């Protein structure tokens, strides 16, 4: 009997287990899942919770029923992976040996990594919405806020759901308009990037949306510390705030570092096409836990698991893994006022305008704000629980397709030629 151990029962881990449980012969393979938490959190909902669209109870479910009944679930924290002998050392539990290991422990906000961020102001004037507690505290703060300077901020990249802070800024603008107090709020978007987003065309489009909403953009801001009421950058810029909504540094699990498998941020170094950990033949990392040059997002976890499962069956049969993940990501970007836009991209193709073909629902507009994109975003929650996590097939292509996408517009602003400007 061989044993597959999966660390983490978040989005990626749950889909992997559900899919592999169906295809691995039960007489040959045992599946063990290690997950300390009792619940599964619907993370895309955290963006909406501060604005009162969801309640806490809408976003969490017990995680055991989301896994197949035949798998063993160990509730323990991982201490370290010993890749030499092939075992996972656990806190307060016997070690578990593996023939194949899948690391799917994600990435998490670490406010303690920025001086002054995790201080007494956290939960009062300083907030984050990447945890359930954080999002709940922010909801309370927003509902009582009288106005002033709101700063929406990213400490450093990569972060999971990299469009979420932008969406937060758009939704905050909408929220204050609806409460009739937009004129009493100044919103500034502070980012270490040189624009609103990374890829040039999306950055320009999203930057335009900030502009139209009267949201100031402070680019190239690399925070050194948080003082009382101000963000201070390494190059001595100071941004005052009355209410700070930050996305703390995102880091993979600490055991990744202790197991010598990670980069500086504890994300597992893998082959971006197959997710096999560098230098190893029986350890994979999937979802946010992996250091991949694409977005850390649920859509990436979903698309990558499809490639992974096919490859994994070949791999354990001793054959080469022929499929390569293309980095496909697909994100609805909520823009406020009941609209959203959609971006679709991969390792090599940046988000482009055009349309995204979707059976039944009809084509969705790419990089354009529409009502139907917003409805698509909301419709995703039941799909997540009932189709995505159980590993059922969604009617969307796994690999990115150029169908419907407009060719790269020949815009001189997007291909700057003078070095001084670009660097």
């Amino acid at each position, binding site marked *: 009997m061989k044993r597959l151990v999966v660390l983490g029962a978040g989005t990626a881990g749950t889909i992997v287990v559900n899919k592999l449980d169906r295809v691995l012969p039960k007489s040959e393979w045992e599946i063990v899942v290690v997950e300390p938490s009792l619940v599964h959190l619907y993370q895309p909902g955290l963006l909406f919770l501060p604005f009162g669209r969801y309640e806490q109870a809408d976003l969490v479910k017990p995680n055991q029923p989301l896994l197949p009944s035949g798998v063993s679930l160990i509730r323990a924290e991982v201490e370290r992976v010993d890749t030499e002998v092939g075992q996972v050392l656990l806190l307060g539990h016997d070690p578990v040996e593996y023939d194949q290991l899948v690391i799917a422990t994600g990435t998490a906000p670490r406010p303690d990594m920025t001086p002054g961020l995790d201080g007494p102001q956290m939960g009062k004037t300083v907030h984050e919405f990447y945890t359930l507690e954080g999002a709940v505290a922010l909801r309370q703060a927003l509902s009582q806020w009288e106005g002033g300077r709101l700063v929406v901020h990213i400490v*450093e*990249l*990569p*972060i999971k759901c*990299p469009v979420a802070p932008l969406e937060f800024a758009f939704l905050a603008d909408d929220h204050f308009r609806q409460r009739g107090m937009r004129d009493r709020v100044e919103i500034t978007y502070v980012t270490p*990037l*040189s624009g609103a987003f*990374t*890829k040039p065309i999306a950055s320009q489009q999203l930057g335009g949306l900030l502009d139209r909403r009267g949201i100031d953009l402070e680019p*190239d801001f*690399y925070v*050194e510390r948080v003082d009382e009421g101000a963000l201070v950058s*390494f*190059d001595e810029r100071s941004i005052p705030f009355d209410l700070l909504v930050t996305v703390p540094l995102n880091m993979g699990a600490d055991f990744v570092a202790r197991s010598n498998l990670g*980069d*500086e*941020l504890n994300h597992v170094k893998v082959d971006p096409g197959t997710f096999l950990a560098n230098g190893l033949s029986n350890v994979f990392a999937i979802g946010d836990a992996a250091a991949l*040059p*694409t*977005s850390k997002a649920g859509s990436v976890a979903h698309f990558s698991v499809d490639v992974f499962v096919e490859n994994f069956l070949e791999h354990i049969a001793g054959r080469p893994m022929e499929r390569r993940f293309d980095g496909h*990501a697909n994100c609805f970007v909520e823009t406020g006022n009941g609209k959203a836009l959609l971006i679709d*991209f991969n390792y090599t193709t940046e988000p482009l305008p055009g349309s995204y073909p979707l059976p039944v629902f009809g084509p969705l507009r790419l990089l354009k704000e529409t009502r139907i994109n917003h409805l698509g975003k909301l419709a995703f929650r039941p799909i997540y629980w009932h189709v995505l996590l159980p590993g059922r097939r969604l009617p969307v292509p796994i690999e990115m397709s150029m169908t419907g996408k407009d060719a790269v517009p020949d815009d001189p602003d997007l*291909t*700057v*030629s*003078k*070095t*001084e400007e*670009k*660097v």
Partner: protein
Amino acid sequence: MTVATIEGRHVDVDAEGFMSDPQQWDEALAEALAKNIGIEMTDAHRAAIRFARSDFMTTGETPTLRRMATAGGVTTKDMFLLFPKKPAKKLAYVAGLPKPVGCV
């Protein structure tokens, strides 16, 4: 792919002017690239560039500011003094390395 002429030499650059073939780079070219973006080179610049290049040769990736600080021993504060405003990009530009992966 575009070819730019720097210091009378032809080098391959991407759409934003970053060198696309690290093998075409040498220290003399670095001085010219630095001048292009208004940087006066010092030994501290050269040390940072040397680390970035050797790191790229082993990892295949342009180091991030965090990697410069943890593996290269150049603090982020110092990186901002050496390469003001956009240190990771300016370092990559002068070191003849691809633009750092804009984490998406």
